């Protein structure tokens, strides 16, 4: 019987497990949308580390029939990946109710357990392979990480072709294929049977087994509940499932920010949903401008009052309502930028008769690009740059996007937009109104910072902000607003009953006239931000309003710790406080991950059998193993995540970024792992190289990438690969070097070390986000370098004078 390491099976299983992890994020985005789903997945990933503890505890039994157990675990993954998700999505979990109903936590816990099982199964198989073939760890790790890279790329490709639910079949098939490959050398019959099952089985699953059960509270579920409402068209891509709904009996109507004085609402519209949440509407357009009159009655229409036949750049054009608005106002030319080609494709093709193909008008030019990338590459000057309601209200209102990086609203972003304005041009950003004011004030603070960065001495003269009851629009001018323009703003607000938040020279009596608030925190806030006590205001305000930067791109994170007692007090008095959920959920996830990790890392030490096996290892090694693998697990992710984000901004398009950066990291780390087999045990230079390159990149990358953002996409991809390669190559070495050293001296510690690294990776993902929110991404990398320093110091080899452990 062949006893070669099952490299192919490891690669395929690793690809399946990583693809499953990414797919779960997509699936939960569709059926739920709440961060609690993210919480469940982060806990489920602990299954990977838990496999290390499991193999540690049952090492002898599992390794005695390693192949059979590998096959069983891989098959278990294939079944659990489909079955556990099917059960989990049918549990009556309602994330929205969790603040009111503690019983929802019990349901959430059941989801944790269910999603934990597939990862535990897959990782158990992988850990068995590592433990059985201690001499081939470099090759195994290379196959593992290469598989993960191919899995992530493969999933992206699959999501272009298949609905995410159908993709579950692929994952199941890959799991069975891994089992088949592992079984083949020992049993051709079993291998063939599993192989046939891998090819045919997943496709024989009934549709009901992979049917997505969406929350009743998602916008799409609600829209389809209306009599005769139906899905008219749908397109899928890794960016989301785009669904268009027609409702002939009760028309859908979407006109955010519409003045109460507007005589008419919108003409016929089709509902547009991304992952089941409202993402605007497709408006009927036959070339006649009169039905678009409603678009002149929104806060976003303000800049058109100040400009004559402008050249307009619409960022985040979506289904085209901002383009129609520009046309309704007589724009002479419109450049529309939209990253999600599925939306523009639907508007231009399937819905062409209804939409009137707005992007094909002679005076409109569509660009399939992301805002920052387009702006960096553009050499044109615009009279108006529009950025209106790019994120959905539900997400904005519930603070669900708090952990998402957004490079749209950073100081650097606003600076870049301003650079592309013609003299006297306007940048207009419209956002939903949230109370108490959060994002509007933060945007104002960010605008001040961007203007000051450009040397504008009196930013208040270049800023105008108005608000209606549910939208607010901020305008930045390339120059100072003239008295005539300010008069036009006043007239516009009077006509539409919008309130002026800021114009130069505003008196308190002019504010808070139409949409009256008990205290006008918008007006007070903008006064304070423009005045000498800005820092004091930022410190005392109960929400975080400090301008977001490219290094800390967390525009939607508003939570401040010191408000917690007041929020808890409100809750104790029956009120639901204005809490943005993202940050507290991150803290919960981190606490859970740390607790579960510690318990499962310490469990083997508490049991007599494993204590005995561990006892055979030298004392110093037993101390060094947890420190080394903890530091590596934390350090790897703490370097990878900030650089992923930095390069994502550089590549601009979210898909290119995910594909190129992730694949480069994993492929070169895999090559590094293979290369490490040639290095002498205890080699330290990879640690020095990691520290040197990472620190160099912290200093050099931000200005370098900013300067080169305007390059053609092909050059940017090449440059990204070249920059990622040396760092990832070195990052791939310490883990196999360390694990091989452990395997050579105390094989019983291998699965434990592997598990510790797995736990640390999950904790690090959460911790890196938390620290990046507070410190910025650069300091997270510095912390990672320190961790690699600790790892180098605690490398698991015998130091002079180390005593062997008791036999």
């Amino acid at each position: 019987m062949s006893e070669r390491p099952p490299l192919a099976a490891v690669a395929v299983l690793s690809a399946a497990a990583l693809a499953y992890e990414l797919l779960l994020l997509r699936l939960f985005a569709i059926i739920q949308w709440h961060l609690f789903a993210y919480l469940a997945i982060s806990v489920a990933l602990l299954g990977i580390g838990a496999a290390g503890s499991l193999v540690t505890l049952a090492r002898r039994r599992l390794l005695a029939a390693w192949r059979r157990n590998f096959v069983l675990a891989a098959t278990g993954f294939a079944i659990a990946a489909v079955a556990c998700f099917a059960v989990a999505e049918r549990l009556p979990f309602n994330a929205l109710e969790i603040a009111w109903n503690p019983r929802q936590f019990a349901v959430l816990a059941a989801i944790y357990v269910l999603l934990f099982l597939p990862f535990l199964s897959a990782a158990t198989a992988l850990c068995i392979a590592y433990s059985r073939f201690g001499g081939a760890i470099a090759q195994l790790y290379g196959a593992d990480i290469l598989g993960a890279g191919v899995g992530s790329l493969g999933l992206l490709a699959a999501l272009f072709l298949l609905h995410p639910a159908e993709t579950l079949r692929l994952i199941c098939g890959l799991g069975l294929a891994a089992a088949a490959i592992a079984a083949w050398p020992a049993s051709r019959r079993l291998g063939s049977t599993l192989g046939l099952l891998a090819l045919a089985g997943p496709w024989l699953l009934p549709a009901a087994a992979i049917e997505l059960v969406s929350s009743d509270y998602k916008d799409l579920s609600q829209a389809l509940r209306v009599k005769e409402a139906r899905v008219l068209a749908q397109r899928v891509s890794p960016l989301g499932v785009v669904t268009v709904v027609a409702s002939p009996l009760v028309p859908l109507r979407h006109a955010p920010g519409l003045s109460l004085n507007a005589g008419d609402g919108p003409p016929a519209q089709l509902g547009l949903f991304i992952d089941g949440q409202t993402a605007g509407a497709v408006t009927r357009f036959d070339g006649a401008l009169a039905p678009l009159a409603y678009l002149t009655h929104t806060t976003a229409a303000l800049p058109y009052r100040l400009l004559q036949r402008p050249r307009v750049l619409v960022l985040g054009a979506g289904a085209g309502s901002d383009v129609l608005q520009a046309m309704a106002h007589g724009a002479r030319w419109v450049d529309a930028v939209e990253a999600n080609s599925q939306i523009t494709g639907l508007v231009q093709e399937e819905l062409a008769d209804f939409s009137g193909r707005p992007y094909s008008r002679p005076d409109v030019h569509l660009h399939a690009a992301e805002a920052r990338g387009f702006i960096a590459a553009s050499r044109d000057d615009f009279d108006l740059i529009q950025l209106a309601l790019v994120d959905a209200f539900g997400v904005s209102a519930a603070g669900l996007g708090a952990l998402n990086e957004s490079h749209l609203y950073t100081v650097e972003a606003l600076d870049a937009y301003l650079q592309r304005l013609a003299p006297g041009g306007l940048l207009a950003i419209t956002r939903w109104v949230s109370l108490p004011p959060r994002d509007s004030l933060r945007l104002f603070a960010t605008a001040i910072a961007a203007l000051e960065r450009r040397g504008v001495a009196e930013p208040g003269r270049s800023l105008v902000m108005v608000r209606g009851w549910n939208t607010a629009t901020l305008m930045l001018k390339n120059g100072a607003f003239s008295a005539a323009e300010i008069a036009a703003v006043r007239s516009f607000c009077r006509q539409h009953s919008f309130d002026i938040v800021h114009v130069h020279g505003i008196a308190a009596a002019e504010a808070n006239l139409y949409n009256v608030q008990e205290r006008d925190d918008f007006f007070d806030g903008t006064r304070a931000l423009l005045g000498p006590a800005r820092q004091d205001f930022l410190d005392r305000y109960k929400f975080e309003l400090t301008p977001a930067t490219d290094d800390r791109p967390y525009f939607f994170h508003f939570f401040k710790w010191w408000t917690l007692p007041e929020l808890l007090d409100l809750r104790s008095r029956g009120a639901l406080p204005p809490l943005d959920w993202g940050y507290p959920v991150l803290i919960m996830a981190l606490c859970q991950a740390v607790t579960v990790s510690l318990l499962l890392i310490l469990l083997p030490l508490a049991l007599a059998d494993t204590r005995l096996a561990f006892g055979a290892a030298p004392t110093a090694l037993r101390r060094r193993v947890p420190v080394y693998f903890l530091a590596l697990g934390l350090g790897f992710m703490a370097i990878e995540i900030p650089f992923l984000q930095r390069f994502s901004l550089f590549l601009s398009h979210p898909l290119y970024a995910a594909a190129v950066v992730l694949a480069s990291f994993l492929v070169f780390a895999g090559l590094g792992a293979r290369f490490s087999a040639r290095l002498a045990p205890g080699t330290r230079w990879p640690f020095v190289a990691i520290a040197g390159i990472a620190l160099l990149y912290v200093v050099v990358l931000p200005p370098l990438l900013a300067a080169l953002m305007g390059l053609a996409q092909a050059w940017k991809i090449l440059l990204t690969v070249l920059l990622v390669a040396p760092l990832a190559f070195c990052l791939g070495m310490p883990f196999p070097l360390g694990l091989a050293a452990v395997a050579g001296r105390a094989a019983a510690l291998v699965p434990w070390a592997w598990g510790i690294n797995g736990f640390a990776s999950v904790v690090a993902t959460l911790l890196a986000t938390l620290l990046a929110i507070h410190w910025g991404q650069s300091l997270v990398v510095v912390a990672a370098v320190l961790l690699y320093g600790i790892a180098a110091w605690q490398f698991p080899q015998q130091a002079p004078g180390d005593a062997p452990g008791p036999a």
Partner: protein
Amino acid sequence: MPMQCWQTSCRWLAVALALLSALAVAADDGMSTERRAMVATVAAMARDFRAGGIDARVLAALERLPRHEFVPAPLRASAYENRPLPVGYGQTISQPYIVAVMTDLLRVGAGDTALEIGTGSGYQAAVLAELGVKVSTIEIVEPLAREAAERLRRLGYGGIATRIGDGYHGWPEQGPFDAIMVTAAASHVPPPLLRQLKTGGRMVIPVGPPFQTQQLMLVEKRADGTLLTRQLMPVVFVPLTGGHD
């Protein structure tokens, strides 16, 4: 100040009398204790968060209404907890405190007319009917509308006019209205509804995702026909404290 003390005492006396009278008329359905406790909680919250508290008539209406009849059977035990509950079809019955505040904001009384967009379970319509208001209510989700209509009829609120369909155009045949409540989320206030609001009339719109009412918008139509909106938060959370005031 003595005058303020006197006013406060009068208000408390009125609340107490209203509660007592409500107690007398409430049907003995075995839930009166829970109902009383719920109203006490709502009144306590109103004292904490609203300068003027809540009209005693509104509290009395809540005390009379069998809220457990408006929630799905499995949730009846939770019907008098001060929290929103799911009622099926992706809809909720609002937190009793929010119902009280919204009703209070409408400032309606006997003989007034009210339009509700989004019947839901019918609870809000019944609260208004308890105040002697002539209520018309429209629900877009057909099964929900049928269930609510049947429930309202069974509980003796047959005077409430119910309709299945699109609330966007209001119900001109029943209007104009002294009060309009738009409990179904909307990206904008439908212009036809504003036209059906009487001069001096009030419209209330809760804003926020399900289970999370974050602000209440109150629209008032002034004598000259112009509209004034007030944006109110149901709870007091002043973003700036200390030294700012």
